[in-house]
């Protein structure tokens, strides 16, 4: 599904990604872990197409398409979803209105007719149940005055609505208490299928107790320095990142 080859990217003069290689197949969950400043969030942003980052080398193929040539909105329409670490506020625009625009723009890209009000409402009701979100929250201005937990749950709701092929969760666990974390993880798990894939970017192993990954990769100084199964995450939890740093220094 996703094939990243020797991806290098920088912001201004600063090199951040220094040659990432990663293969993600349908049905898989990959966790990207690593200490602060290792480039985890940059990788998520580059895949989504954020303009601040300049890709200097490498290829990213998504279902056979070179997505580096696509605008961010086209990447989204192709089925890439990014759950933001810091979801922004858009005053005066309700989540419902926002999602209606998004769903229909994506349908338009795919050559489908727009959903009418009834069909949209039905879809919304169904997805609301899935992520245990209240309609009153969705009628409010997007993310405005939302608690940390509400913002993240709203991200997962949007993910459910857009039914992406590849979901990238950028530090979705940050700022969540354990109850909110469970709800968010349940939402993600119930959306898992053999047809879609998930990349979970996280600093802590905690989230991976609830969203169990098939593969774990450790990112350090812009490179994947170690890959393994979920056991690797446990090892990191026990030994800390210094162990990886030392190992990387030896290479």
């Amino acid at each position, binding site marked *: 599904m996703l094939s990243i080859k020797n991806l290098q990217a920088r912001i201004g003069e600063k090199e951040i990604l220094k040659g990432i290689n990663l293969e993600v197949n349908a049905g898989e969950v990959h966790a990207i872990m690593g200490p602060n400043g290792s480039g985890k969030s940059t990788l998520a942003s580059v895949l*989504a*197409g*954020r*303009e*601040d980052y300049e890709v200097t080398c490498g290829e990213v193929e998504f279902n056979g398409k070179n997505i580096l040539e696509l*605008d*961010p*909105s086209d990447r*989204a*329409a192709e089925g890439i*979803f*990014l759950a*933001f670490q810091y*979801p*922004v506020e*858009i*005053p*005066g*625009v309700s989540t419902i*209105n*926002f*999602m209606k*625009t*998004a769903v229909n*723009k*994506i349908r338009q*890209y795919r050559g489908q007719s727009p959903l009418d009000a009834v069909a949209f409402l039905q879809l919304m009701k169904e997805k609301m149940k899935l992520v245990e979100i209240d309609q009153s929250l969705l009628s409010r*201005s997007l993310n405005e005055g939302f608690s940390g937990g509400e913002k993240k749950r709203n991200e997962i709701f*949007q993910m459910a609505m*857009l039914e992406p092929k590849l979901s990238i969760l950028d530090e979705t666990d940050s700022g969540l208490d354990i109850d909110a974390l469970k709800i968010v993880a349940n939402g993600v798990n119930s959306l898992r299928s053999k047809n879609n894939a998930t990349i979970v970017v996280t600093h802590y192993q905690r989230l991976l107790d609830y969203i169990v990954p098939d593969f774990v990769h450790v990112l350090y100084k812009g490179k994947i320095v170690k890959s393994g199964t979920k056991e690797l995450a446990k090892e990191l939890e026990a030994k800390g990142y210094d162990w990886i740093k030392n190992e990387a220094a030896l290479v």
Partner: protein
Amino acid sequence: MSKDNQVLEEFTSKEYEHGWNVNLEADEAPKGLSEDTVRFISAKKNEPAWLLEWRLKAYRQWEKMTEPMWANVHHPQINYQDIIYYSAPKQKKSISGLDEVDPELIKTFEKLGISITEQKRLTGVAVDAVIDSVSVATTFKETLGELGIIFCSFSEAVKEHPELIKKYLGSVVPMNDNYFAALNSAVFSDGSFCYIPKGVRCPMELSTYFRINAANTGQFERTLIIADEGSYVSYLEGCTAPMRDENQLHAAVVELYAMKDAEIKYSTVQNWYPGDKNGKGGIYNFVTKRGLCFGDHSKISWTQVETGSAITWKYPSCVLKGDYSMGEFYSVAVTNNYQQADTGTKMIHIGKNTKSRIVSKGISAGKSQNSYRGQVHIMKRASNARNFSQCDSLLMGDQCGAHTFPYIDVENQTARIEHEATTSKIGEDQIFYCLQRGIDEEAAVALIVNGYAKEVLNQLPMEFAVEAQKLLALTLEGSVG
């Protein structure tokens, strides 16, 4: 009032002091402004002597006044002697089909969702009058007539209802109120008149669109709306379709008069030609709009969406004379490219327990300058007056300007005044968030801007609001990134 009447009487009984030598057969007045021009206009319109004298008095006052320079706008000196102040309403050149119209204009119409018939009307394509607006307008007039509502052109009102015009013309905006009001009073071409009788609730939105008999009155328009005791009217002015006009200077006057328990809601969408991308051309729009809440418990509400004109100078105001009267001002002003807007409101609290509310949303893009200028004045007698003002500015790009000039004068200690102001920028973050959800940049800007202006757009009648939303997006097209 009695003094005014006396003056009026003096004028009406007087003989003309000046003869004139202008050719009355001409379709146009000669360039320039003089007493003769004023006489020419009045004669062309077959006006009664008292109205001519009123115009002349305004002209003489105007002569002594100087153009105000305090607004935060810059433009070359206007040569008032280089303007033609009257030209006969011309039949627009009729064309046979839309394929003869500038395709750019058609594109704009389509984006605004304006119907084909409407497109034809706006571009001057000959339309079968029976199926189009004439029949609508006729049924319209019948319904209004049954309720005793008068809704006609200003000229018609001068002929049919002189007693109302005599009594109320200049009662809210005196002829010497300001430079542009005086100019308008001297040379106004035509406009709308509306009277709602006691206790009548006007059952439909009154729109200039339906008043088809007044052609080409844009330049010096005059509107007078009177709501008698306990009546209600909602009035719509303007059109979301781009309006092109060869006259560069526009100076309109609008007067609203609300008696006891009456309510007037006045909504405007202004989309005059703003000039091109380099700031060439465009309308100078100097408008005086004021409402008088004369009676107790009366209410006047202004809502405006301003997207056009090269220069906008406009402060729809409320004079809250009646006790418990209420004034509201809701505004969205958008400037792009080299447009300049200096707009806001005045809330003058005279009566006891009067209330006012101001919600102003400025949006600046390109190299434009957008200023909010507002005054809240609580007079000595106005015990327990209350005002709430919210002035927000939204910036797009880093070459535009947003300014806020609030003036607050309080002469009564029981007043309660709240003022809130914010300035924000459409963030790259907001745009990227939308893009990541599959919403392209144009749609993203539209979404964000409409969200920002929602509180004001909500005040507009439903159909108008939908068009106004599209208009905002269209005005700002291509201004991000």
